[in-house]
């Protein structure tokens, strides 16, 4: 679609449902996947709450969009960086999050983890390496 390939970083720092930012930013990620850019997702601060398991929204009358994260692999979104310190500050560990995977075409469709747990320093380096940062 375009001759330029940029490193896109989607920065997620907000929790879901209380505001619409998490859901509408995920919509950008899905649309953006068609543009064949080098895409990474960063979950920092309250953004880590977006990925938790067991979200049930029927009693608040809102759409549960958490299953959409599991579909990211099908959209070739393979790099999901979750900040370790942000999880720990919120009493969470990787076990509290959904297991996100993608299938590697080059290795006979082997299932691979999309989520990479990174330290704050590593997250800073990931941010530094981005050409474009989307904030919502």
């Amino acid at each position, binding site marked *: 679609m375009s001759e330029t390939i940029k490193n896109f970083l989607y*920065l997620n*720092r*907000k929790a879901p449902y209380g505001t619409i*930012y998490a859901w509408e930013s995920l919509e950008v990620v899905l649309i953006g996947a068609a543009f064949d850019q080098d895409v990474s997702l960063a979950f*920092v*601060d309250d953004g880590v709450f977006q990925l938790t398991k067991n979200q049930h929204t029927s009693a608040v009358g809102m759409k549960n969009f958490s299953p959409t994260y599991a579909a990211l692999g099908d959209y070739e979104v393979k790099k999901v960086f979750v900040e370790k310190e942000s999880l720990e500050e919120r009493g969470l560990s990787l076990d509290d999050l959904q297991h996100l995977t993608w299938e590697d075409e080059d290795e006979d469709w082997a299932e691979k983890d999309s989520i990479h747990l990174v330290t*704050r320093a590593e*997250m*800073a*380096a990931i*941010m*530094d*390496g*981005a*050409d*474009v*940062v989307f*904030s*919502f």
Partner: protein
Amino acid sequence: MSTLHTVNKSPFEKTSLAACLEHVSAGAAVLLLEDGVYAALTRTSVEGQVKSALDNVKVYALGPDLQARGLLEERVIPGISVVDYAGFVDLAAEHDKVQAWL
């Protein structure tokens, strides 16, 4: 790559400034705008945090936002440069990207 980070939240209400400062690399710049300018003042509980950030990064505050809030430039922490919107544009152009800590 050098980044211009923007922070538009009061540090007394939200953690955006702290989160930003924990992720900035040496050589980056931080622009305080909107309610973010409250972090630029002396004698606040975040003054120490901002002053130590000044060792690594440049910090700017948006003048029109200071003025709107009745904040005098003499209250701005020494080392923080006050810029107008044209200065904001220059900063955005001088750095490789702009990262908003919303």
